[in-house]
């Protein structure tokens, strides 16, 4: 039997090797895409097989499944277009790094985080040039990389702060959300949909490992930032006319809620995993849905479209379901994850909950506004309409089903065999209080 220390390298190597080999199929789009899908499936199987041997934190096991699944679904509906090849390739590499980060220990993990952020910087810059938003993203990721490196060199508690900064660039926390927003708005092809899950997952994983080292003052500071971030994200999402920034800022608002909860309670129970997975999947689904519009009509202003309910019924139905899931309607995972978080004993209601409720209230407006705009109203007669193709439909449908499963499945299914640090942290937090 393989040694556990080899697992991270193997999980990283499979998709990365797949990416290298896919270069051989560069000229054939169909084959390259098929190869990418097969690679992701192999990664998924490997992750499943190895996860039983790994004694990791509670987050590793579900996330090891979630990352390949998201990568697979984001690739599945991709149209065969030469502009997408780089994105497919990057997806495999990022998947490898993501799996590696989830399973690797200190030094390798930090190196992989730096590599991951570096690749993201490269792709964003290559694709967009040096626009103001890109500059913000590069600066944020630069800070994340520097922090990750410094955390290896600095003593505690400075190293803790450095890792926390890295986490904040991955799992977006105001004011370090620029990278996350830049990734969702500036990455090509399916990458935004994959990044919507990958970045928060990796960030959250690091955060959970860091929780025992965080002090009460740090928690309080993070709570304030999280509340500011939730409000800021909601306000900017409300202001956006374009879909991608709206989704990116909505993501900031929802992930800030997670920060608020973790920092407020000092715990990361299994419900947070459900919540994070559900928010990530919902964002990913909405980004993929938007991408199917982008693939048909180019970089079009969403306000110039409408009336798709009759013309693209499958798309409209799935988009509506994804929006409902994203704004936290039952029976989808965002709702059950959030409710589960609130019902844990560690959570004590406070005034800040009202701010979080406002986040949800505003989300119900901007998500539904987006759906309303696309699904209802008058359609443009000068456009040719084609409903989702089979692969697009399948990927969105599976995403909706996953969100449904997250909503109705018992939370113990997401519980890892490993000792949950959250329990230890909870005890520690309570000891501070005394």
């Amino acid at each position, binding site marked *: 039997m393989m040694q556990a220390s080899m697992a991270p390298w193997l999980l990283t190597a499979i998709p990365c090797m797949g990416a290298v080999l896919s270069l051989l199929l560069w000229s054939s789009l169909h084959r390259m895409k098929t190869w990418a899908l097969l690679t992701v499936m192999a990664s998924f199987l490997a992750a499943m097989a190895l996860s039983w041997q790994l004694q990791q934190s509670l987050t590793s096991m579900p996330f090891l499944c979630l990352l390949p699944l998201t990568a697979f679904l984001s690739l599945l509906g991709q149209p065969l277009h030469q502009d997408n090849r780089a994105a497919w390739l990057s997806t495999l590499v990022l998947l490898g790094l993501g799996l590696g980060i989830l399973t690797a220990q200190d030094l390798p993990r930090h190196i992989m985080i730096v590599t991951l952020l570096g690749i993201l910087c490269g792709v964003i810059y290559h694709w967009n040039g040096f626009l103001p938003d890109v500059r913000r993203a590069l600066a944020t990721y630069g800070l994340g990389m520097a922090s990750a490196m410094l955390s290896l060199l600095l003593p505690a508690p400075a190293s803790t702060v450095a890792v926390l900064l890295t986490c904040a660039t991955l799992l977006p926390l105001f004011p370090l959300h620029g990278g996350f927003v830049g990734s969702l708005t500036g990455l090509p092809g399916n990458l935004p949909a994959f990044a919507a899950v990958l970045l928060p997952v990796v960030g959250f994983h690091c955060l959970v490992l860091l929780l025992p080292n965080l002090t009460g003052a740090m928690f309080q500071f993070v709570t304030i930032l999280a509340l500011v971030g939730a409000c800021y994200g909601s306000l900017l999402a409300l202001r956006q006319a374009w879909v991608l920034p709206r989704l990116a800022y909505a993501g900031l608002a929802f992930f800030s809620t997670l920060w608020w909860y973790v920092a407020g309670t000092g715990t990361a129970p299994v419900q947070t995993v459900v919540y994070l997975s559900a928010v990530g999947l919902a964002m990913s689904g909405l980004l993929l849905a938007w991408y199917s519009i982008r693939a*048909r009509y180019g*970089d079009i202003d969403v306000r110039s479209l409408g009336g798709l309910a009759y013309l693209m019924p499958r798309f409209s139905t799935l988009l509506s379901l994804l929006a409902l899931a994203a704004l936290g309607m039952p029976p989808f995972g965002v709702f059950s994850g959030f409710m589960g978080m609130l019902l844990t004993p560690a959570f004590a209601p406070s005034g800040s909950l009202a701010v979080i409720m406002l986040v949800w209230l505003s989300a119900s407006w901007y998500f539904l506004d987006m759906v309303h705009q696309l699904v209802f109203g008058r359609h443009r007669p000068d456009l040719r309409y084609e409903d989702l193709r089979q692969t697009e439909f399948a990927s969105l449908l599976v995403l909706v089903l996953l969100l449904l499963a997250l909503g109705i499945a018992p939370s113990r299914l997401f519980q890892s065999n490993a000792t949950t640090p959250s329990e230890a942290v909870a005890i520690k937090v309570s000891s501070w209080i005394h």
Partner: protein
Amino acid sequence: MDSLGTAGHRPDLEARRMELRGMIRLASEVIAQYWPMRTFVHHNPLHSLEYLPFTETVRRGQQFVGGNGYLPGDMYRRYLKSGRIQVHHIEEALAPLARDQDVTLGFCSISYRDVLRACMTHGLSASTHEPLDPLMRREPNEEQIEALAERLSSLSAPTVKERMTTTVREDVAALGQQLTLSGWCDQTLGTHIVEQINAELIKWCEAFLDEGHATWSMPGREQGLYAAWKTLAVKEWTTCGIAESRRKIAALSDHPEDTVFDCLEALAIPAEFRRDYLSLQLAALPGWAGFIKWRAEQDAYPWQQAYPVGLVKFLAVRLWYVRELVQAICHEELGIEGNYRAVSTYMEQHPHAYFMRKERAAGRLPSVYAERVDRLHTQTRNGRKGIATVSHEWEQLTEQYQVEFGPRRERATQRVMARQLLALAHALEIVPAVLMESSARDLRVLLDWMEAFPEAAHGPLWLKTLEAGYQDHLFAMLLRAPAKPQPAVPEQQSPVRPHSQSVFCIDVRSEPFRRHLESTGANDTYGFAGFFAVFIRYRAWGKEHETEQFPVIMRAKNEVREIPRSYLDHYVSKHQSRAKLVHAGHTLLHDLKANVVTPYVMVESIGWFYGLPIVGKTVLPALYKRLTGWVQRLFVPPIATSLTVDKLAPGETEEMLVSEQRALIWKALRDRLSLHGSRVDPEFVEALRRRALDEDAPVEPYLSDAAKSVRLSAQQLASFLDELRGHYRINRRAASRQKERITRTGFTLDEQVITVETALRMMGLVRNFARLVLFCAHGSTSENNPFESALDCGACGGHEGKPNARVLAGMANRSQVRERLARRGIDIPSDTHFLAGQLDTTTDEVQLFDLEDVPPTHRKDVSRLIDDLREASQLTSQERCSRFPEIGTVLPLDEAQASVQGRSSDWSQVRPEWGLSSNTAFIIGRRNLTKGLNLAGRVFLHSYDYREDPTDRLLEVILTGPQVVAQWINMEHYFSAVDNEVYGSGSKIYHNVVGRVGIMSGPWSDLRLGLAWQTVMNDDLPYHEPMRLLTLVEASRPRIEALIARHEVLQHFYHNEWVHLAALDPEDGTWYRYVPSGFWRRIRYPGDT
């Protein structure tokens, strides 16, 4: 504040105001009157423009209201595919456009006509948007498209600069005439001024025009819309964010005309554009404006008398918002004045900035450029840079846009052209390879032909082809009819007397019933406008208001009241008190629900009780309806009534008046003085009456004595008399008014004779009378249907026709009337009895009235008629059921009957009936022309016998009366079907009643015009095939021509192609079609050479 200046300026101002009112009247032509939903009247939404040709009116509708006048091309192509539209009809429609030109590609010669036909049948000229950077290629012939696009690379697409020049030129030309300044701001700056102004106007109109729906009504309405708005708006904290709105509103003139004028001046709208500009403002909310237009013309309408409103006031309010918001936005965003001159100058002097902003607002820019436009716009607004610098940057941005996206756009355009050419090749069955080998010049010619025949130009042609298909079918049926058209030979009296003769409304829903009734036995049927030539204002028993039982284009001078039969006098007060109790219960419940506090308690205490109706109406609607009906009858049993058909003689009027006044005095004595019958002398009552009426006369000694005898002091007597005059309305003025009302009630004998004679002659029923003649009106029963009146009789002003039928039957049964008629040549046998009835078009049941007046000798006849009517009812239900999409098959008779009854009582049913849709033609002639033909409920049938109309007076009435009503119904359906969003009222699902006058979509919208989606559409295909009315007349052509020459409305109909006309000339028994140029063209029969 009154802006009137010195007295010397007054005449000028008055003249100016009058001129403005005239201009607004003309400007309002583009919007139709909107009748309140209680009396829904089908009408042409572009009625005021009928003096223009149909196609021109449709164009104006597009310009002002934004409505399409034809179905989308794809819909017509579906008709073509299904065989409903024939290719040879397309050829005929294209004939006038065809040019003798062709292009030779390889061995193929493509004519101009081929291209036009292919454009229509394959939608080649539909404008398509080609995305600049799509990631998904969809066409299977992608390689061909690319190759052909490459071949067309020499054909350049317009550059950004060229597009910019065109845009500026067109927009400058459109501003003021087709584009309002507020619309310009929205399309240039991405603002929502029009939406904002509409929302304000909806708010004010909704509150002001409420007719009893609102629990708290708007204060100050008696001042009129403009003054009431001023009073309230001046108290608003902020109005649409307009700076100093309170001061500005307070400073407005008291005269709305002056405000309109000032606003037009401030907006600098050129004088020659003002009418169109005002039309555009009215057309922004055609529903509310249409209702105001209607109400302003109803001087006698109680709500208008109480709360006057007019379009001038409406426009004054609207234009104030327009002026303020446009000026504020233009100043803030562009730094220019918000008026016509400044905006035109801006477009001409800053074309780059204007073009890019417009592209940005329309969502046509890629996100990168959209952001750059936003940034540049912000810099301009903040004034960070000089005008010259900013102007240069806009120019640079436009150039960069051309450099970066110009080639892509050009390529996209070439791809669009390639796709068009390949589709043309496919349509003409040409191998695509031929296109590759052809010269670019030839391909350009083909593309030019297609471009010159855009999809928008296909509508009129498609409409003709759709109409031609149906008309061919109808004429073929008429020619196959059992009774062929015959030359005019006086018809002999039929040897066989029919069992019954029934006269139905001309409504298309009567046609199936008539057909089935005729099939049950020797029952003859006739068609006549459902008000049966009886123009009455009618007040039903127990109702407080009168209804107008005649077409809205007419007026009435007679009133008819429903009163309990004389033998039920003892029961009336009991019935009234019970009815009042029920009414009080309803009012109490309503008040409890509408009160501020009580609902909280009410919901807890009796809220559960409402569960019963909800469950009943939802689960078992028919049973629930029967049950509630039974309970209602148990508590307040129906009462037998008669109508006041006869006019009272002057003496009788006086007697009736005196009798009513005496009864009131008895009541007053009892209620006020507790003096009961035994203590009161009738002479004392009479003395009181005389004294109350004649205040100035000296007090009769008898009155003083009688008062003393009942212990009334002089002071008490005087006070009681005052009460009689004030509270009980026993005074001279009230008596005179009452006498006038009584005088209007009923018909004189002469009027009755004329009414019956006109009706019988117009319907051609002048001989061979059956023992029973039924005048069958129609009404409907449906639940949860705000537009229930739309299903009732249009000829009766959107009411049930029952009173009219009862009045006519009552008149025709009078012996004096019959005697006079006999002298006029209409000999009604003494054994003929006229009956009144009503067909319920949702349940297909016929209810007969006044059966107690039927002579005993006719018992068997009535019984047989009832049986036949029941059978016809079931057959009609069966036929109707097969048309409902969710049934679609022929049900057994019992099931069909149960099904239609269930529909009528189902509160979730969006189609309680579906009869009026699909109307297409109006046949004026004898029943023999159509007897036995299945016209599928699509034809209005008006009985008319030209032999009974030597002077053409009757035909004149039919063409200018019933035909107009039929055309309104037809046009309402037509426009609602072709563009349901604009001319129709959208889906019923979102309808909400507002102000008891109409409906809105959702909580906030314009008053929705026209018919609902579910009424005219079956899924996504029209159930009502939108075609113009075809009128078929059995009469000689010269006589019809004379009538057309005499009536402008007929000239508009036929010459402007609003209605098609064909005639069966009795001289030669041939059908002729009337062409708009004023000639007749013989209709070819199958087999004609």
